[in-house]
């Protein structure tokens, strides 16, 4: 474990050296996500301007939901972006074979190979939204609330990573996993808003099947004092379980790969 943490640190250092060499690229990447986020936020702002109340949720309350999922997504974006590009930049090019002849875990190698700085923009936007909405809503930053938020965001990030890992594993059968990842990943957009505005089927989907709701709606509800029962506490448990399942799926895919090659 310690060895992997040190190694990750070295990978990160090298990555930043590259980024410093391409400063313009770094700035454009990190800020492009901010601009994209602003576009999304404008939509909420316009919609909420028309209907000040979204099924009982005010503007700042919706912003908190939106901010939480943006933070969770940014963790996935920063630390696991290679799950998107595994097909064309690693498996198809044969670079993935390189990971298999190195004395470290291939999944670790894949993730450590590229910290994605574009996610930093997402992180900043998410943090700003959560700061703004909690301030407006008068949610105090008590140690308990801070810890609760941190756990919720980390669990949310883990849920994103786990689902992307499962879909990315399809690369070992179809050599390009982006379409599969895209379909599953895009459902998180529902969870940018309070789940109560949706049909029951979608609520169940985002709570129990693709639990993106556990990264946004449920923790936000808890902080706002809205009753969601045990679901307020379920995020870390589900995140951990999902990570274990995803890793099993990944290992299964890896076994298939060693049977067939690319």
């Amino acid at each position, binding site marked *: 474990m310690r*060895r992997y943490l*040190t*190694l990750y640190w*070295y*990978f990160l250092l*090298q990555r930043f*050296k*590259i980024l410093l*060499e*391409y400063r313009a690229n770094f700035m454009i990447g990190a800020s492009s996500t901010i601009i994209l986020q602003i576009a999304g936020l404008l939509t909420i702002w316009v919609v909420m301007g028309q209907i000040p109340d979204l099924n009982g949720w005010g503007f700042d309350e919706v912003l908190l939901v939106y901010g939480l999922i943006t933070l969770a997504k940014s963790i996935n974006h920063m630390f696991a972006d290679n799950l998107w590009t595994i097909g064309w930049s690693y498996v198809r*090019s*044969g*670079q993935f*074979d*390189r990971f*298999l*002849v*190195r*004395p*470290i*875990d291939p999944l670790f190698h894949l993730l450590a190979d590229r910290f994605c700085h574009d996610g930093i923009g997402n992180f900043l936007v998410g943090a700003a939204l959560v700061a703004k909405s909690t301030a407006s809503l008068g949610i105090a930053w008590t140690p308990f609330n801070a810890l609760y938020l941190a756990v919720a965001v980390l669990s949310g990030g883990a849920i994103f990573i786990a689902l992307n890992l499962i879909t990315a594993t399809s690369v070992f059968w179809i050599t390009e996993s982006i379409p599969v990842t895209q379909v599953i990943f895009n459902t998180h957009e529902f969870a940018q808003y309070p789940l109560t505005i949706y049909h029951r089927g979608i609520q169940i989907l985002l709570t129990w099947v693709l639990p993106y709701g556990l990264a946004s709606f449920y923790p936000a509800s808890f902080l706002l004092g809205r009753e969601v029962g045990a679901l307020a506490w379920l995020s870390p448990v589900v995140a951990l379980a999902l990570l274990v399942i995803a890793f099993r799926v990944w290992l299964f895919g890896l*076994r298939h790969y*060693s*049977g*067939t*090659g690319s």
Partner: protein
Amino acid sequence: MPIIQAENLSKVFRIPHKDPGVAGAFKAVLRPRFEDKVAVNGISFSVEPGEIVGYIGVNGAGKSTTIKMLTGILMPTRGNVQVLGRDPHRQRVANARDIGVVFGQRSQLWWDLAFIESLNLVAKIYEVPPARYKQLLDQFAETLELGELLRVPIRNMSLGQKMRAELAATLIHAPRIVYLDEPTIGLDLIVKERIREFIKQQNRAAGTTVILTTHDLGDIEELCPRVIIIDAGALIYDGPISTIKARFGKYREITFETLGDASACAVPPGAEIVGAEPRKLTLRFDRTLTTASQVAQAVMNAIEVKDFSLAEPDLASVIKQIYGGALREPVTP
């Protein structure tokens, strides 16, 4: 005690069968059918520590598949392979510490990083002790002339520089076995020479076992006392290169430039025509049946010869004959 032992090693790929056209594509989706493609078929061989073995065959003969099984990337369909007493696939990580792999033109170095930074990272991955790292780096910097390259990012390197950098990165953890998949492809003669020298030196000084796939006969002649030849997935020869040369080297080629029409000439006994143009005749003769002077005399008696030359059979023509099917029946060295 062999360092690599392959027994009846086979790899069969199941590939989806598609009929041509749109209809075929639909059929493949609705009712997938699979064909078995035998990439490697029952290969057995063993390699002793410190050997340099040339692993050769035409494209698609199964070289890469074999290397992938030896390195642990692929699992054999049948048969068994042991590398340093381990199963390279099941004990992939342990095996990885003891081997180094150069995959043709795919670099293992980070494109945008200065070479020295890439090397540092590779050394961290393999946990090379700092003192050992420094010593090997100094040694490689000298023999591969890396000094001025250390600060250069890989993307700015020429093909030859890249390959030198690649070799250094592959050997920086002092692996006991290195697999080199076409290490000299596309390089000029001077770089080829330097790389061969480096491989030889590593083999001599550190006792590194080398498995080399190549299409470059210079590599084989200079580096590999022993070759393994595979064709269509099967092993067709395993033995010293000298045996191959002796067996196929009994033929000589002699070319005549003539003043008159060369086709008028009768073929002398023990020889055969390999090329005939109006004023040029190339004959191949078996040295055990006739001599150069007998062949030359017979031709000269028939027509006026302006010039003639005698060619030593090089390994290229020998290999061409083998790939052409001359060794379909396995021979014992």
